[in-house]
């Protein structure tokens, strides 16, 4: 029976991970800002087999309360085996271009709030010499593109930060797993027309849970995104800058 802390637990991808853990009888502590939504998820996970589910409400941009968040989680779970960080917002690129405030707010949500939690957890897990940390970044962080580089650069920061943390914590038996999903059909992307490249959150969740179990470092989900991103990253700038992506 594992003890799992899920940050941004109302995310559709995170919820599907939680359903997999629930079916195995694991214990979970869910953190999210929408109280009613996370309560619904908690009741559901109990019926699906979770041994115990507790909740905590916080707007994760309130970084001043992250220490408290982790203390409460420790109290609820005993000691945490797995942390999954999943919250995020798909930034409105056009709006960001017209507003410094909007741009910084998006970077706050998608990078800084995550980095704040990571910093605190890293120290706790390093001292304990155990634990798994999994963060949902994005393929968008692999190369900045005109249509979403604010979101992309925030995710790039998360990817780079976790890469460094992975090296540091390796010595302490703590695994750091960076997930780079491609297009996933969730509320975040509800206004997009779906095509062949789109994945279901349940399929993505299966890959995430497996990657954590196998202590993977960095995965693309679905895996074909690795190929797409290799090509995209290799494109010389004199071509890349002319593209509309």
């Amino acid at each position, binding site marked *: 029976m594992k003890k799992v802390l899920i940050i941004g637990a109302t995310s559709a991808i995170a919820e599907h991970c939680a359903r997999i853990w629930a079916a195995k009888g694991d214990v979970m502590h869910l953190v999210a800002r929408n109280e009613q939504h996370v309560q619904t998820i908690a009741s559901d996970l109990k019926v699906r087999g979770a041994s115990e589910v507790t909740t905590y409400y916080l707007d994760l941009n309130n970084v001043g309360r992250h220490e408290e968040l982790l203390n409460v989680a420790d109290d609820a779970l005993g000691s945490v085996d797995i942390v999954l960080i999943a919250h995020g917002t798909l930034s409105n690129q056009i709006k960001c271009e017209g507003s410094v405030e909007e741009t910084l707010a998006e970077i706050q949500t998608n990078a800084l709030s995550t980095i704040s939690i990571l910093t605190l957890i890293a120290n706790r897990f390093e001292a304990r010499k155990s634990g798994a940390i999994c963060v949902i970044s994005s393929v968008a962080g692999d190369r900045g593109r005109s249509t979403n580089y604010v979101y992309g650069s925030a995710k790039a920061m998360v990817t780079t930060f976790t890469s460094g943390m992975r090296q540091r914590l390796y010595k302490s038996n703590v695994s750091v797993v960076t997930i780079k999903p491609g297009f996933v059909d969730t509320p975040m992307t*509800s206004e*997009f027309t779906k095509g062949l490249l789109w994945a279901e959150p349940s399929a993505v969740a299966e890959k995430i849970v497996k990657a954590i179990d196998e202590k993977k470092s960095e995965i693309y989900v679905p895996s074909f995104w690795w190929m797409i991103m290799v090509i995209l990253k290799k494109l010389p700038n004199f071509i890349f800058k002319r593209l509309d992506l």
Partner: protein
Amino acid sequence: MTMTTTISGWGNYPRQESQCTKPSTAALLRTAVNQEGSLLARGMGRSYGDSANAHKVLATSYCNHFIDFDERTGKLTAESGITLREILTVIVPKGWFLPVTPGTSYVTLGGAIASDVHGKNHHIAGTFGQHVTSLNLVLGTGELLTSSKHENADLFHATCGGMGLTGIIISATIQLIPIQSSFINQKTIKAGCIESACELFEENNDATYSVAWIDCLAKGKNLGRSVLMLGEHAEEGGLEIDLKEPVAVPFNTPAALLNSMTMKTFNTIYWHKAKAKPHHAVPLMPYFYPLDAIGNWNRMYGKKGFLQFQCVIPKSDGVANMRKLLTEVANSGEGSCLAVLKQFGKANDSLLSFPTEGYTLALDFKLNESTMQTVSRLEAMTLDMGGRLYLTKDAVMQESTFKATYPNWEKFEAVREQYGAIGKFSSMQSKRLGLA
């Protein structure tokens, strides 16, 4: 949350440009009713025709949470967008089963209630709605109202079988049935013609589950030859449930592949291969949901899609009338390999619920002009015989047939009027059938 897409039922006909909203929580689903214009709830889109088509639909798929499950009493409460398949994964290992289940597990709780679905145990257990102990419905006014057989009973009986036209079902409580095993003891009997099939239904009226696969292309003395499958819940074998992901049919196959030759061959082989077998144990999933093993099998009918025809005809003269219907089908030479015959028990109190005492026949027709005419002739014959068609399978029924064969439609409209549904909830089907 909202996007414009083309939607269709399982038959891929007709198609409809639709503004589809997919609220991420039940609370948002509820407030989505307040938007301008008339709407319709949509679940898994497993109804065949245009029952779940509308200019504006509210998809319930994110509202798929369990709310409560009492393992001692078998009472289960869940949001309406949960699928029966998900419910099974949780309840079967705990020794419970659905009181009534349709032939696919990929339907939502809300859809099962709205179509008041039936299963192979209709003659004993009635319809799905008869096992709903209460449901929460968002009315046209935005108000959330609980109803049951005892509370707001008029609304309850209009909502079960009401095809989404009374409001949006948000959640419901159902009473499950206890099982000791996830296996079914199946017994297979062959019937050489329709008369003997109907006799066998009569003789086996105490079997918990009964259904016949019928070779509707056989003619003459073989007309209506069938394989009758009876089932009882086993007592041994454990409670495990094996949910394999379906093998997908990736794209629409050319409709020519499914011509009458191949179907005839398929039907003949199937009939001759089926062996009369005494009781033997089969797992739940393939027993109840054989078609779920192939995802999107509807694509095998090609781009144009197909029609499903399902009628029920009264028991008196039922056998002779079934012979007439099957003769029509056999003569057309266009019927599918998927034809199902079943004996229904008594009707219930829900206003638009389909089953009435008698025989029901269901089969597919690949869509073209000639099959349209066949289906329309079958509709006329059913009307003459005092039968009716199943709304959740229908895409083409005439308003006059509907109004003549669902005599409670006016009461249904009165309840809708009273609870603020008129003008707020409608489907392409409800418009075609002349409902307000």
